[in-house]
């Protein structure tokens, strides 16, 4: 069969996009090992392992911080997914006072400059003894991830509907068991998507984490950003590379673990 020409154009567009996304990745990989890359050379003019040595230097605690940072973001992602599941259920299945407000609140963090929120919440958190604690950081990160996770979970909850759970009720399952055995497995693809998105948002969060964590709660972004801001391309790229690779590994693991739960590929399509 002949392919329609529109298909060819779309394919071309797709390949250009993929190239446009991947090319910079190659460039930062190169930069992580570059010393000098002077005009007009298309490849680095001299290489070095400076950045790698720096990152692996024991004093910097890069890897402990990376690990604790991953752990923190995973916690945020998990909580965010859970809260989103709950809120989505409420909004999709129930009529209650202030329903529209919830919808709006879940969008609001996108609509407020982070400085305003960070400065305000900082004082509040100090009073509540939440500043400089992992819990405080988790809470502010949560707030920033929820708009994304709620959106994802709302759509999926809507598309799965309540039918199967009702079926479970009449078969003798209590509401909690019905959720656990029926809706939860079906929501898994959305949960993976939520966790992915929330993890991304939380892991790359800088300013708010910095202010609330106050340097007591260190995240990877906090060691990476100064180098990037300073313009040290070699070190900045190396950190960025670690950032990307660690995230990909984490995603791989999340998928692996959840796929085990989720014995089969679901009908409901979410990535």
């Amino acid at each position, binding site marked *: 069969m002949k392919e329609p020409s529109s298909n060819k154009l779309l394919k071309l567009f797709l390949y250009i996009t993929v190239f446009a996304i991947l090319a910079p990745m190659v460039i930062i990989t190169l930069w992580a090992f570059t010393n000098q890359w002077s005009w007009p050379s298309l490849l680095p003019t001299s290489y070095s392992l400076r950045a790698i040595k720096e990152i692996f230097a024991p004093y910097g605690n890069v890897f402990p911080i990376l690990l604790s940072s991953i752990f923190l973001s995973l916690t945020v992602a998990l909580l965010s997914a859970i809260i989103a599941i709950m809120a989505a259920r409420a909004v999709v299945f129930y009529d209650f006072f202030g329903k529209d407000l919830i919808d709006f609140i879940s969008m609001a963090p996108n609509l407020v400059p982070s400085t305003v929120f960070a400065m305000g919440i900082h004082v509040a958190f100090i009073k509540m003894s939440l500043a400089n604690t992992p819990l405080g950081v988790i809470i502010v990160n949560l707030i920033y991830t929820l708009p994304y996770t709620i959106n994802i979970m709302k759509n999926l909850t809507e598309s799965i509907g309540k*039918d*199967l759970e*009702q*079926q*479970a*009720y*009449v*078969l*003798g*399952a*209590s*509401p909690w*068991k*019905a959720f656990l*055995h*029926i809706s939860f*497995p*079906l929501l898994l693809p959305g949960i993976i998507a939520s966790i992915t998105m929330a993890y991304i948002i939380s892991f790359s969060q800088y300013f708010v984490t910095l202010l609330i964590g106050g340097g007591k709660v260190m995240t990877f972004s906090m060691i990476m950003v100064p180098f990037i801001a300073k313009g040290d391309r070699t070190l900045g790229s190396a950190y960025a590379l670690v950032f990307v690779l660690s995230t990909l590994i984490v995603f791989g693991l999340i998928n692996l673990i959840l796929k085990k739960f*989720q*014995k*089969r590929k*679901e*009908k409901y399509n979410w990535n």
Partner: protein
Amino acid sequence: MELELKNISVTLSKKEILKSINLRVEDGEFISLLGASGCGKSTLLKTIAGIIKQREGSILLGGKALDKVPPHKRRTVIVFQDFRLFPHMTVAENISFPLKMLGLHKDKCRERAVELLKKVKLEGFKDRHVDEISGGQKQRVVLARALAAEPVVLLLDEPFSSLDINLRKDMRELVLDLQKEYKITTILVTHDKEEALTMSDRIAFMHNGEILQYDTPENIFKNPVNTIVADYFAEGTYISGEIKGNRFISRFFNVDINRDDGKYKCLIRPSALKVNKAEDGKFQVVAKIYQGDNYLLKINKINSSLKLESILNEPLDIKEGDKVSIELDKDKLIFIPE
């Protein structure tokens, strides 16, 4: 156990869907719920199962009020029309689900699931995934799953409507057998009058959130309380007339009938009409439609607006255009008071 609905009213999104429904189903009885789309059949089942809360009235099961019992403790199991199999479980897991909810041990669950699968003639399908089986097989799994929940009342919501005719027939028999075997009080919602007529002990006919008639199949077919009910079971031609002194008198024919005096409509269904070829007949066949087992004849009275239909069982050589005479089967005429 016997089920009794007393004055059940249901309001959804401020619309009154069920209006003061009263219904009593005896222990082990099989009744059908019939009525046009949107009349409230599914709502009624869901209300019985506790998925929808009634605004007024009360549901009694074995004499005890169900109103404060949450859905999962009622043992009123619905089989929904759209299967609602759990897509992430195998056939056996689906069937085991209610057993697991009953707190049975895993081995017990498996044992019982296998037993039920045998009942619905799906022995080999234990580990199939639910989207790897056919519609009819799905239907049987759903039924097995419902039975696994050990229902006291079984609520079937159009369970066969998506099956083809033969499968439907098998399934009907299976349901009846199992229902008899376990003596489960059963309510079947259906669009299919034949299904209702053949399967049920009694039929409740619903219309606009009310029950218009609740009677045995023969009675509801033969003595519909109004034209809505009558039309639902078989359309035909209405002829207005009057009964006076045990005789029905109309423009077209008169007939003796044992009924109170008053204005009546007589419904002539195709099956009440016998057609004979007759050169001098006052009727003419305008269409002969093949229906498999038999033919449907459309007949007009010559020089009149009267249109009748009849069923031709024998392959008599009546053709379109033929002139015919007709004969009415008095016992199959239906009289509805106006």
